[in-house]
């Protein structure tokens, strides 16, 4: 208990609050601009914070990370472009809601769900750090492969009625993921001598191209002057009682999934959001609304990616293994400050763990407040005439994509995938599975081949966790379909039992 008071007490200074406020401002800005990732901002900020004391330095870095995962929802919902990869799944339902005139409610619900997910992740960090990190240690290559396969089953859900097209798109994404270094021997593969492809296809450029640029191009190509813009009305800003009630289940599902996925090393909030969206759909009473503007889908995804922050911080602190790329940057800063994350940290410096949790708590509250305040200002931006709005979006996407690696090559990739995304849309191919394949493909291949090297298929089917995950994946695909078929049959039987309207005599209809 003493450690808790000491840890939280250390935050009660003007310097700490100022650091959190600065971090929140930078984070919100970073999140709102597509192309600037939280990893990049934290890496840049770490250069400035190294000269500070550890706690204020950590306050700036952690708050940037948390606030970025609030700010990135705004472009995801309003212009179908994820501000950071963590909000990929936000676009699935957020943009559809915005087009239905429900942008206000989508933004508000997203902010609250993100905060709820964040609180759950922080709570788990404070309470269950040790047992969860022990579980995460059991995840070897076979278990990770099974987890990725479980995640890939989402392609089926994202494809909707166009299953074949969705699966082709998914396999295309997986094929894109094979470009770059071979995961086992490190040799170049399918790079055609292009050095920029050695690290793989720049996936942020692909995401911005497929979602943001393709959307702008799609509006440009089909809209004649004078037609109404898709988002002119923001509608209500606050969810009503019934909607609030409806959100409890998806936020709970998202928070649970996000925390678990966040705990796993090297799995980021982007994957957590996607997996949670899928799980929420499977557990929903209205799964048919997912992908078409479901408040449940939106909030499940957003709560999950923010819950993942707590999970990844937990892994970093408890194991000394970075939970994701941004935590890898933060781990470097901690080591320079003389903080040695690992199992010993919880016994040697428990107050520091609580201070970190406290910083995250204050940062989440502040980011939530900023999100709610800022949204009405963002609305003004969308009142711009088309010619200005399209230009601003494209110009920021171009410079934002360039800024990720300072490479004009990435801008070319973004443009290419923008045009490809436009063509795919017009032929009815969903873009979601491509991104899913591109993100999960390298993880799947690496862990599959490692498992094979470790002892063949036996390593997978003798692992209870791996078998459990694969069975869950199969059930998750099969059960909703069997249920839907049964329901349809029952409906047909009911319809045939119900007497139809009596035939109208010919004379009567005259």
């Amino acid at each position, binding site marked *: 208990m003493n450690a808790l008071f000491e840890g939280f007490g250390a935050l009660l200074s003007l310097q700490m609050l100022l650091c959190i406020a600065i971090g929140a401002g930078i984070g919100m*800005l970073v999140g709102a*601009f597509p192309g600037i990732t939280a990893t*990049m901002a934290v890496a*840049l900020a770490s250069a400035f914070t190294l000269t500070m004391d550890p706690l204020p330095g950590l306050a700036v870095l952690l708050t940037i990370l948390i606030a970025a995962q609030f700010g990135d929802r705004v472009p995801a919902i309003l212009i179908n472009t994820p501000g950071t990869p963590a909000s990929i799944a936000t676009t699935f339902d957020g943009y*559809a809601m915005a*087009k239905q005139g429900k942008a206000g409610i989508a933004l508000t619900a997203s902010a609250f769900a993100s905060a709820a997910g964040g609180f759950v992740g922080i709570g788990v960090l404070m309470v269950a750090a040790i047992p969860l990190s022990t579980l995460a240690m059991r995840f070897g290559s076979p278990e990770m492969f099974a987890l990725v396969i479980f995640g890939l089953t989402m392609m089926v859900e*994202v*494809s*909707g009625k*166009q299953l*074949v*097209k969705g699966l082709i798109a998914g*396999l*295309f994404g997986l*094929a894109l993921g*094979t470009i770059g270094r*071979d995961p*086992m*021997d490190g040799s170049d*593969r*399918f790079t055609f001598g292009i050095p920029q492809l050695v690290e793989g296809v720049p996936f942020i450029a692909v995401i911005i191209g497929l979602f943001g640029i393709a959307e*702008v*191009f*799609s509006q*440009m*190509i*089909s*809209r*004649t*002057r004078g037609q109404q813009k*898709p988002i002119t009305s923001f509608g209500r800003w606050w969810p009503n009682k019934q909607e609030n009630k409806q959100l409890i289940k998806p936020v709970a599902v998202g928070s649970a999934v996000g925390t678990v996925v966040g705990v796993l090393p090297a799995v980021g909030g982007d994957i957590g959001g996607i997996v949670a969206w899928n799980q929420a759909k499977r557990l929903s009473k209205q799964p048919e609304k997912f992908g*078409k503007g479901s408040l449940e889908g939106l909030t499940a995804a957003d709560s999950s990616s923010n819950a993942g922050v707590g999970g990844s911080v937990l892994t970093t602190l408890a194991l000394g293994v970075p939970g994701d790329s941004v935590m890898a940057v933060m781990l470097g800063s901690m080591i320079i400050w003389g903080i040695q994350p690992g199992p010993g940290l919880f016994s040697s410096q428990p107050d520091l763990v609580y201070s970190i949790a406290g910083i995250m708590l204050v940062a989440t509250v502040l980011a939530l407040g900023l999100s709610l305040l800022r949204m009405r200002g963002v609305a003004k931006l969308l009142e711009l005439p*088309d*010619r*200005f709005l*399209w*230009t*601003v979006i*494209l*110009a*920021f996407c*171009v*410079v*934002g994509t*360039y800024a990720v690696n*300072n490479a*004009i090559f990435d*801008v070319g990739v973004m*443009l290419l995938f*923008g*045009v490809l995304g*436009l063509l795919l*849309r017009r*032929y*009815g191919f*969903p873009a979601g599975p491509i991104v899913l394949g591109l993100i999960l493909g390298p993880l799947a*291949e690496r862990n599959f*081949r490692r498992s*094979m*090297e470790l002892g063949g298929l036996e390593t997978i089917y003798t692992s209870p966790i791996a078998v459990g995950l694969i069975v869950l994946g199969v059930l998750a695909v099969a059960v909703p379909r069997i249920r839907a078929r049964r329901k349809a049959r029952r409906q047909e039987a009911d319809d045939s039992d119900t007497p139809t309207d009596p035939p109208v005599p010919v004379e009567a209809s005259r």
Partner: protein
Amino acid sequence: MVSHHPPVQGDLGVAARWRAAAPGVVFLVLGTVLLGLARSIELPTRALAVSPRIWPEALAFGIIGLSVLQIVLAFVTTPRAATAKTADDDDEEGPASRSGIVRVVGFVAATVAFGLLWYYLHFLVSGLVFVAALTWVAGGRGIKDLLLFPAGVTVVIYVLFGLLLRVPL
């Protein structure tokens, strides 16, 4: 006596089927290329449990198989069903207009030109020209649209990325 016929028949139906099959053909070619590339991967001298070709080959076979299925479906199902949009597509996505295609081509061309110009001119100059070109392509005319607005956007981008985030623009 007047007889009624289904609305889509003849040449129109065949054209729609070919249009629906076209992406399947493109993916079939891509899958075949991937298969060729996968088979060209050099095998390492040391013994491995699985070949490094196994993953890309499996993906290539998957793409080829599904593409063939897509082509077959395009000819078996009705043209409307074969070209139906997916769940995450725009419900109100209208047909492509000629001016829209020109705008998209203009945006792509302006971005490519900007990429080249950026090598030779400072961002503040090349960016201004780029934003002005985009605004013109999108229908902007006059000093406000082609000078003041591009200048404002360029300066905001430069301050944000170049000065605050220290991106070498």
